[in-house]
């Protein structure tokens, strides 16, 4: 060796492995318009499908007349429930154990529900034909309020379930009731509440919103009548699960179905569910013998596929007069719309709502959730969060603020004295989770120091004085949040969807020249998997990330996995990737020892090579080893260098973060100026800091949207009032603030590389942080709770209700 011999650090840098802000490999295609999204797929003789949708939220369907539509040149077919019924496809199972109409079967339950599927030679003819289908309806009374839906004389929405009092998740109490889910110790919690020094009580509503990815949902189905093989391209966050579901409901053998998720233009939970459009495109392809494309327009997307939230959370929090929390009680009324089409693990009909004790050491707690049918769109998906975690985080972070008002105590200090301490991990929460690791006090102190929290409070107090003295019309708000997430679903012992265990997978094939391909059961929708999973592997197997191809989304080639949502890709598939890499390394060690003519135990892994212990100049690089795997007859070893890992995580991971937001509120216009947003995230081991920061910026902006204006809203007739981007708030670059990002690193003790997942943290933590800031601005005038979104009108109204307009 000499001065020119690269050091271990230089060799490691060359790999661009974990910790490197490696530029994304995806971007070369995307920046020049060479992505391949579902609507880019073009097949010979392809037809286009489009839906006739109901304008009524609740009505009987008396008749559907297709004649005029079928008479239009270029129209190939018009499908209704009657056409699908002989195939048993007029209804389909939902991921939540309910069933959902594919096409209206006798009645409709929400505005925009699919009534008929028109198939035509192009999308213009299809749109024309949709207008020509004549549907006769008989209106029924509409229920959009989940509390009214449970009144004794409420109209029965689901006639198919009338008087069937045993639901998928236990007994039903009412024809419009779906389930009751209880966690924790009710009696003990109520005893604590009865005895407590202080109890704060509040109704916390997290309004209905929508993931609204920029690309809407769509599919292309192509049934090959000769081979009997169905190929289905689509916007699927879980392609393997879609294949299994498609097989189960269509009767087509699973090996004859190939599901492909091409590039996906954002998912955020919108693309986890199975939608009528997917089913209809398949049926239409079988019926017509031609490929059929269905792509939603934006209105379809906002009206019919996958809303999120709509949780009414009644909370009680008990504490000593010094502020030590002694108990937490929550009853949630969950509006699921016309069908229960959540995408939660089977045993969790309200997702992981039982993470609602948050970052705090709360000795006793009780949670009950009642799911309710209403005349609204089905869904309840995890919009950039892991199964209701954002609802849980919003609930507890509001309850902490409400308690701090009741105690007349600083909200930062109240949090600090109640945090789970670093030495309490692994920590068993009162509602049944084992938090893997955390150091909340360190993160909190770092965050408060970074923003000069005492200085902010001094400034705020001065501002309040100035406001009262008539010197300014702007109030200042300081939003605080410390959130704990639960992500990475999940252990097969308690997590499945439709019976499919929520493990994930990675299969690696090393090529003779020392490059590789790895395939995973997940699918990127912008998270940069092709970049980051190659980095995990580079560090594990010592080949440069640039020489490793990552492939996902094709069920014919990728190993089975449950897909990408709930921040599960890194915790589960990332772990599988590391474990598969270690299998490669174990075999490589044997090959190296053989080549170096020493015992297996006498070589050690060193960044990109195996070297003889104590003699680092004697080594074989991983490239040498890869070639040897294909050209040497090594006694006792099979040729080749491949590995597969199916990883069943032993626990969830628990990322956390400390956020601070500073705002100015103009009480006369209701405008909110976000002066500063500081986000400290702890996602365990950091794979690619550049991508992590990008995820944080994006998640915070989705949180900004939700907290400050985004809403799916209905009138009393069930008319959808926010079905275009004119009415549905999406922040532009102009409304979006600059974010400051920071981090601490507390690795997960059970994850092979210590990573926890980050994509959803900023949304989970961001929503309460923005909302708390708005509430905090009005704290001096007696506001305890008002509902999101805090758009200009609502903020103005809050100011007005508090008498601030003179």
């Amino acid at each position, binding site marked *: 060796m000499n001065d020119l011999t690269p050091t271990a650090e230089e060799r490691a840098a060359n790999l661009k492995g974990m910790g490197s802000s490696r530029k994304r490999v995806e971007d*070369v295609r995307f*920046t020049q318009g060479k992505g391949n999204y579902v609507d880019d797929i073009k097949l010979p003789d392809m037809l286009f499908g489009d839906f006739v949708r109901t304008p009524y939220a609740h009505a009987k369907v008396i008749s559907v007349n297709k004649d005029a539509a079928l008479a239009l040149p270029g129209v190939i077919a018009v499908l209704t429930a009657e056409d699908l019924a002989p195939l048993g496809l007029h209804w389909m199972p939902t991921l939540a154990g309910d069933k959902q109409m594919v096409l209206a079967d006798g009645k409709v339950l929400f505005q925009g529900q699919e009534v008929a599927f028109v198939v035509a030679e192009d999308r213009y003819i299809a749109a024309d034909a949709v207008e020509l289908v004549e549907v006769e309806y008989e209106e029924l009374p509409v229920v959009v309020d989940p509390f009214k839906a449970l009144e004794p004389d409420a109209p029965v929405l689901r006639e198919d379930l009338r008087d069937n009092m045993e639901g998928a998740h236990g007994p039903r109490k009412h024809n419009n009731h779906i389930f009751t889910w209880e966690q924790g110790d009710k009696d003990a919690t109520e005893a604590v509440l009865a005895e407590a020094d202080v109890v704060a009580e509040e109704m916390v509503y997290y309004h209905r919103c929508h993931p609204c*990815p920029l690309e809407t949902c769509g599919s292309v189905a192509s049934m090959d009548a000769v081979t009997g093989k169905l190929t289905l391209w689509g916007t699927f966050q879980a392609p393997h699960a879609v294949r299994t579901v498609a097989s189960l409901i269509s009767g087509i053998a699973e090996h004859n179905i190939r599901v492909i998720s091409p590039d996906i233009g954002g998912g955020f939970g919108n693309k986890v569910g199975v939608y009528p459009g997917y089913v209809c495109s398949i049926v239409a392809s079988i019926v017509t013998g031609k490929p059929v494309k269905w792509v939603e327009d934006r209105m379809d997307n906002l009206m019919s596929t996958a809303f999120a939230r709509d949780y009414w959370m009644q909370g009680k929090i008990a504490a000593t007069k010094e502020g030590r929390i002694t108990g937490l009680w929550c009853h949630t009324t969950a509006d699921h719309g016309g069908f229960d089409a959540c995408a939660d693990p089977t045993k969790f009909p309200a997702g992981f709502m039982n993470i609602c004790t948050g970052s705090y050491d709360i000795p006793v707690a009780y949670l009950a959730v009642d799911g309710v049918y209403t005349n609204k769109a089905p869904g309840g998906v995890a919009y950039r969060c892991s199964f209701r975690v954002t609802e849980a985080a919003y609930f507890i972070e509001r309850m902490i603020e409400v308690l701090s008002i009741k105690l007349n105590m600083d909200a930062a200090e109240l949090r600090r004295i109640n945090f789970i301490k670093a030495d309490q991990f692994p920590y068993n929460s009162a509602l049944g989770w084992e938090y893997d690791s955390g150091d909340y006090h360190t993160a909190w102190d770092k965050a408060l120091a970074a923003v000069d929290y005492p200085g902010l409070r001094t400034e705020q107090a001065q501002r309040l004085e100035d406001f009262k003295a008539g010197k300014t019309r702007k109030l200042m708000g300081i939003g605080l949040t410390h959130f704990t997430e639960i992500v990475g679903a999940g252990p097969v012992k308690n997590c499945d969807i439709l019976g499919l265990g929520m493990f994930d997978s990675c299969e690696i094939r090393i090529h003779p020249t020392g490059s590789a391909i790895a395939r995973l059961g997940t699918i990127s929708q912008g998270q940069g998997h092709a970049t980051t999973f190659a980095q995990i592997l580079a560090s594990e197997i010592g080949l440069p990330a640039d020489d490793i191809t990552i492939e996902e989304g094709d069920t014919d080639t990728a190993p089975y996995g449950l897909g990408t949502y709930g921040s599960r890709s890194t915790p589960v598939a990332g772990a599988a990737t590391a474990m598969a890499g270690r299998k490669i390394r174990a075999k490589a060690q044997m090959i190296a020892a053989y080549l170096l003519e020493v015992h297996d135990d006498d070589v050690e892994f060193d960044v990109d090579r195996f070297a003889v212990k104590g003699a680092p100049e004697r080594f074989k690089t991983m490239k040498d080893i890869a070639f040897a795997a294909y050209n040497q007859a090594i006694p006792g070893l099979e040729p080749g260098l491949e590995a597969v890992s199916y990883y069943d995580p032993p626990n969830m991971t628990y990322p956390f973060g400390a956020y601070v937001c500073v705002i100015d509120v103009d009480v006369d216009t209701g405008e909110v100026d976000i002066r500063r947003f500081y986000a400290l995230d702890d996602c365990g081991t950091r794979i690619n800091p550049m991508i992590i920061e990008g995820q944080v910026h994006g998640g915070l902006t989705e949180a900004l949207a939700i907290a400050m204006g985004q809403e799916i809203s209905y009138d009393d007739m069930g008319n959808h009032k926010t079905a275009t981007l004119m009415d549905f708030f999406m922040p532009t670059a102009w409304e979006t603030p600059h974010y400051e990002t920071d981090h601490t690193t507390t690795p997960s003790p059970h994850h092979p590389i210590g990573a926890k997942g980050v994509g959803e943290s900023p949304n989970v933590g961001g929503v309460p942080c923005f909302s708390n800031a708005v509430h905090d601005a009005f704290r001096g005038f007696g506001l305890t709770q008002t509902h999101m979104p805090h758009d200009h009108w609502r903020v103005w109204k809050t100011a007005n209700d508090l008498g601030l307009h003179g």
Partner: protein
Amino acid sequence: MAKMHVKMTVNGKAVEALAEPRTLLIHLLREDLNITGPHIGCETSHCGACTIDMDGKSVKSCTVFVGQADGADITTVEGLVNDDGSLGVIQEQFREHHGLQCGFCTPGMITRAHRLLQENPTPTESEVRMGMSGNLCRCTGYQNIVKAIMASADTLNAQKEAAE
């Protein structure tokens, strides 16, 4: 429906097509000309995923009839690569600064940024934010998009200076 004959220049190439007058330009580009860089995100002019450059202006091609584009000079994101096929400056800076994630808004963003930097070669951050406010992104929170455009302005101005 009777079709009309339209001619236009797309990314420097003369093209012609027969299309119904009601055909939207985005559909002609994507389905007849196989130029699938511009995307459809809303069909109501709000999201900007379909943004193209038409006769020196940023235009949302989801709300332009082909007849309105007859004779137009059109540039899409595909036309912004260098002659040797390498990424153009703005494309490269989006990659450098992680100005994209899912990539769906990216063609519209880059095409709009291309025009913005001709309208205003030395924008402030605030001017970039306002100038890009017709294009929605759900993934990035815009922070790195703004950074990429500011960096593009610097690079383009340095190139211009060097050429003078």
